[in-house]
């Protein structure tokens, strides 16, 4: 894909119009950290690019009693510096921090990570764990889709041609409810996740888990919400046995592949370790938030 046409619309409406009216392949660009590399690797097919970074609402966020409403193109470097967001969604901020280097974070965005729909994307399990939703806009109007339903396959998502992701919405966590995200890589930085795990837990004043969500990444064609793993936590005090059980259930739910980043067996094992460790971090945070 060689970029032959570049557009920088100023509004969502203009962007939607650009997406609908093209006879060559058209892709939206947020940070471009995936798109530009992809366009270099197959230089033959012509590509039209719609850059969303000139649309103010795509770059902004709001946080109020209703929760977080995030412009999907805000770069991770800006997002991870939002202390008010970090207080409430530390796991999502961790996931955004883990995407690439400092340089990549200067461009890459949570929306881009989501729409690129890689199985190993770090923010997707983190978003699923906190029950995030996607507000999608197109010529036919708006619709809302849960993140776990947004991604439909390797590099594929539920958006139709002409649609774009306008907003990422997350409810405000109650006191006693917090998240965590961990991934495993061979080095300390600069790698793609071998496995990832996002966990959110809600504790009551007695420290009993009343709700939980566990999502795992890089161990299936899409990030998976593993309700049965979360069920193992609900009603417990997140003691060693229940956390171990949740980890085992998550491992069993994984259906990874062997590739240059890991084997089936290793990924399956690692994702369990991550679920366990992330649950304990979320637990600590939840307790502190009470």
């Amino acid at each position: 894909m060689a970029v032959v046409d570049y557009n920088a619309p100023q509004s969502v409406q203009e962007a939607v119009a650009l997406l609908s009216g093209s006879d060559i392949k058209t892709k939206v660009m947020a940070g471009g950290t995936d798109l530009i590399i992809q366009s270099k690797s197959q230089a033959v097919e012509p590509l039209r690019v719609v850059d969303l970074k000139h649309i103010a609402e795509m770059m902004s966020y709001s946080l109020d009693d209703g929760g977080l409403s995030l412009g999907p193109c805000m770069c991770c470097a800006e997002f991870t510096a939002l202390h008010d967001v970090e207080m409430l969604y530390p796991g999502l901020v961790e996931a955004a921090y883990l995407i690439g280097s400092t340089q990549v974070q200067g461009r890459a965005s949570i929306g881009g990570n989501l729409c690129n729909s890689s199985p190993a994307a770090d923010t997707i399990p983190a978003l699923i764990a906190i029950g995030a939703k996607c507000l999608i806009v197109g010529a036919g109007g708006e619709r809302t889709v849960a993140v776990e339903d947004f991604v439909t396959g390797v590099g594929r998502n539920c958006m139709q041609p002409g649609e774009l992701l306008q907003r990422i919405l997350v409810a405000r966590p109650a006191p006693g409810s917090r998240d965590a995200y961990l991934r495993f890589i061979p080095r300390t930085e600069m790698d793609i996740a071998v496995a990832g795990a996002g966990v959110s837990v809600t504790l009551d004043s007695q420290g009993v888990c009343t709700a939980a969500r566990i999502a795992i990444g890089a161990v299936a064609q899409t990030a998976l919400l593993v309700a049965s793993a979360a069920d193992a936590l609900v009603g417990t005090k997140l003691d060693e046995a229940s956390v171990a059980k949740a980890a085992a259930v998550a491992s069993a739910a994984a259906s990874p592949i062997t590739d240059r980043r890991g084997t089936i067996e290793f990924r399956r094992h690692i994702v369990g370790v991550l679920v366990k460790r992330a649950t304990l971090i979320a637990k600590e945070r939840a307790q502190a938030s009470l």
Partner: protein
Amino acid sequence: MAKLHITTSINGEATEFLCEPHETLLDVLRNDLQMTGTKEGCGSGDCGACSVTVDGRLTCACLVLGVEAAGREIGTIEGIGSSDKLSVIQEKFLEHAALQCGICTPGLVVSTQALLEQNPNPTEAEARYFLAGNLCRCTGYDKIIRAVLDAAATMRGAA
């Protein structure tokens, strides 16, 4: 393919150039503007040799389209230090022998400046993580990190 006319600012200087839509900012800097201080090591954002700032934010020039520079403020290695005086960071890199072959050095200087603007007093671990996207194959990073921490201390002292 028709070339696009782009008006931008590079190191504070109003600049115009023509580029094709597929060209990256790195292509434009190196091939169209002859600003070869920004180096290419991978073309995929994995090595940091082409580190620049766009509106003050650190990024890799190979991950930015040239056309995106329109209306932005681009910062490159050529904008650091003056023609007769090196910046503290550059001086500390030389003093600590924090370069061997030197190909990663412009990128590291640009990244270090971004680090110290954001965090004037980084710990060793903070410096190492911030700079993890700048690969160096010669030094083992030891002297680079020492230079960065020393530059930070010196700049704090001077401030």
